[in-house]
């Protein structure tokens, strides 16, 4: 489902100029440590700035453009980047920076603020075990509450000064003579680090579908991950394109306010009931006073989700059971048999993301809502033309069409040893070792890297394992003063052969089209196993699997 994406820009609008300036001065004041390096490299930086954007050069800018150094450069300040920062600090590494292209932390939960936005893994599991929160208000918390938790992490661990906003990373290259990564940003700044952590998020670039005439539409266009809270939907004729995870959350909410709502579906997904509830105060108090009860809750949730792997990842009797549960849900909620047919998936459950909702099906049956399953022919000035020849006219089109997921490339050019470029190497599908390291790209650590995706459990469970693994690697680089820590090619190959063999037997590779797979059906996204297996694999950092070159020795 790789979307040819003309609009692949940041998910947040650029901040007003005044705000930008303020942020810049604040940042400059907050980084006396980086100043020395800055002065030293001022000359080169200026040269660079001239080349990059001569027209916009000013004194303030050239000052900002000096090369700044840190032991670890973290790209992105979402869950992953901030989690990395916390774990590094806890491991005694304090010389790191986070580069964030937006002007706020939070990533997914900063960008996805559409009505109804919430997690669909229980909050007690969709949070860091090393930073527990006894106060979650619901089983599945809303977007704002999750963002609040992330902002709280920044405060609690004093990370604010480490974060550099409006630093949109555009390039990373490894200098093997120095054992240093050089990271460039769109703003013209240059950062250097002995290690780089990629925490730019798997779902951070909103994607519009490849539909003809997308820009011809004269009405309002809104992407689910860039919600416009100033737009008043009441009484409006509204379209929602897409019926994935975001759409099933948006539709019930919009149906309440919009005048009419038409939902355009390409493929129906499996939908199961969503056991949501508000957590009573006594329960929150209990979690706070007796942390053991909260831990027990997390454990229970964790193991419930682990069993779901049996239904979702592999084709087992539990798969049939899950399908039956979903079909029963459909039958009990949708009366009309043609609509049921339209909503019945024709692929195995688990092949794509399973959706959780109690109010999606009922919303589709409201008087002001229509489900449209005709393929879309094009978008025209006044609306959407479907292949049955009808033009559906709208005031606003909501695109719940997901994200541009780089399965066969990188979000920006990454150059490793001997000038090799990772995007080129990954053009046939991304490959890594344990989803974190890539041979030929030393001292580089991925979060949410190739084959790290969970189908059944919290992304943060996987993330914690990756963060701790990265800490192991970074500690080796810093403590042993390594110039190069590079996973061995043969080790990586063996790892991938094994992975792909196991993936072939999973539901993801059972024939449906999904964003998990490349156009050629190569699965570079998902981890074929239990979260427990993944964690076990990540808990060991095997030194023999890596090639080391010490800083003092010759490369």
């Amino acid at each position, binding site marked *: 489902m790789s979307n040819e994406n003309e609009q692949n820009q940041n998910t947040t609008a650029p901040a007003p100029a005044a705000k930008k300036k303020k942020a810049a001065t604040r940042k400059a004041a907050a980084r006396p440590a980086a100043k020395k390096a800055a002065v030293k490299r001022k000359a080169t930086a200026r040269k660079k700035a001239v080349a990059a954007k001569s027209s916009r050069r000013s004194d303030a800018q050239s000052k900002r453009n000096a090369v700044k150094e840190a032991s670890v450069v973290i790209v992105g300040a979402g869950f992953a980047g901030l989690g990395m920062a916390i774990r590094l600090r806890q491991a005694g590494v304090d010389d790191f920076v986070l580069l964030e292209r937006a002007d706020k932390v939070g990533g997914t939960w900063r960008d996805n603020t559409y009505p109804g936005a919430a997690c669909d893994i229980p909050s007690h599991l969709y949070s860091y075990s090393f930073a527990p929160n006894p106060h979650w208000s619901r089983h599945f918390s809303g977007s704002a509450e999750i963002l609040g938790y992330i902002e709280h992490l920044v405060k609690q661990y004093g990370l604010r000064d480490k974060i550099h906003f409006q630093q949109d990373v555009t390039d990373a290259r490894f200098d093997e003579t120095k054992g240093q990564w050089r990271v460039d940003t769109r703003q013209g700044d240059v950062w250097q680090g002995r290690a780089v952590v990629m925490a730019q998020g798997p779902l951070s670039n909103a994607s519009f579908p490849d539909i003809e005439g997308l820009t011809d539409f004269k009405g309002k266009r809104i992407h689910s991950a860039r919600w416009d809270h100033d737009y008043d939907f009441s009484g409006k004729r509204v379209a929602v394109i897409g019926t994935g995870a975001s759409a099933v959350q948006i539709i019930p909410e919009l149906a309440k306010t919009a005048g009419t709502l038409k939902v355009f579906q390409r493929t129906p997904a499996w939908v199961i009931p969503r056991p949501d509830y508000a957590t009573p105060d006594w329960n929150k108090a209990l979690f706070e006073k007796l942390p053991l009860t909260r831990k027990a809750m997390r454990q229970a949730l964790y193991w419930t989700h682990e069993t779901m792997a049996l239904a979702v990842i592999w084709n087992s009797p539990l798969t049939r059971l899950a399908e039956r549960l979903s079909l029963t849900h459909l039958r009990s909620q949708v009366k*009309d*048999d*043609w*609509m049921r*047919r339209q909503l019945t998936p*024709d692929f195995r459950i688990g092949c794509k993301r399973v959706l959780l909702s109690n109010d999606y099906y009922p919303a589709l049956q409201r008087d002001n809502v229509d489900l449209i399953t*005709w*393929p879309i*022919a*094009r978008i*025209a000035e*006044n*609306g959407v*033309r*479907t*292949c*049955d*020849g*009808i*033009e*559906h*006219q709208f005031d606003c089109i909501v695109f719940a069409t997901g994200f541009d997921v780089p399965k066969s490339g990188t979000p920006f050019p990454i150059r490793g040893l001997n000038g090799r470029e990772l995007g080129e190497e990954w053009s046939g599908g991304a490959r890594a070792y344990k989803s974190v390291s890539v041979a030929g790209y030393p001292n580089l650590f991925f979060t949410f890297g190739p084959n790290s995706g969970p189908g059944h459990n919290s992304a943060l469970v996987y993330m914690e394992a990756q963060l701790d693994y990265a800490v192991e690697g970074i500690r080796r680089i810093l403590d042993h003063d390594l110039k190069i820590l590079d996973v061995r090619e043969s080790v990586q190959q063996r790892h991938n052969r094994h992975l792909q063999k196991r993936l072939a037997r999973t539901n993801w590779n059972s024939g449906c*089209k999904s964003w998990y797979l490349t156009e050629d059906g190569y699965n570079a996204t998902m981890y074929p196993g239990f979260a427990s297996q993944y964690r076990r694999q990540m808990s060991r950092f095997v030194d023999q699997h890596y090639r080391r070159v010490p800083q003092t020795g010759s490369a």
Partner: protein
Amino acid sequence: MANIDLDKMLAKVKSSQWALADIDWDAPGADLITEEQWPKLKAFMADLMWIEHVGARGFAAMAKKAPDDTLKQIYTYFHAEEQRHANAEMALMKRWGMLDGDELPEPNKNLKLVIQWLDKYSDDMPLEVLGSVIPMLEIALDGALCTFLLDTVDDPVCHQAFARINDDESRHLGVGFHVLEMQGRGDLYIKALKTVATVLDPRLILGIASYVPLLNRMRDNVVAMGLSEEKLYACMKKFERIGGRTAQGRRNPWYQIISRHGRMVVNRDNRAYHAPVDLMVRLTDYIPERLMPSRVPTWVKGISYRPTA
């Protein structure tokens, strides 16, 4: 070889979409329908519109059965395109003042039976059956009838609409015959077994019982409009000719059954076939309304003559 590249076909289908809004339904020329033509044309158009709609439902069933994703997508598009034909034909009826207000014209009783059958059983039919019945219906009823229509009606808007419809149909037939051939390639023995098994399936017999009179009924309609019966038959023979062009296509047992049936429809002298079938047609006219399927499936309600919604 009539083999086509399905991926290219899908791309072609995607790039050949049109909408009701592309046609000016109020352009001059509506008065070219003669008073004498009007009532017969009304009955004819109503049937034609319903047949498109029924064909659409057939493609919906085929999309579920398609052996690969490309074919599935193609059928999904064809499903919508047949619906578009029905919509456009309804728009013509609207233009000619043939609609009772905004009401959908009633389907005739044979059609009601076919609709009922499609709704209940088509999703359970193997692709082999639908893959043969649909091209047959398309040629005989859809493609052929449209040509007749253009022979008798002078309204330029009608010609505009059917130029587009026929363009779509040529792709439907291309894919239809390609699939017939694809299926012919399989192991004959298994095919034969499967065929026998489905023939014995009572659901299919029901389907045949409603499809067979439909063909004869349409023949009657055509004749009533003063069109030559021979032309319709010539079209059904086209199915035999094109579908049977390659050995693979001929080997498809369904092709065999259906073309043999087509031959029977065409051969007026075959009294053994026509007497009972014509009787069935007349009988369906006498089925009391209360015994006809009462529940109208939702998919039937989706037709619209309005270019915008």
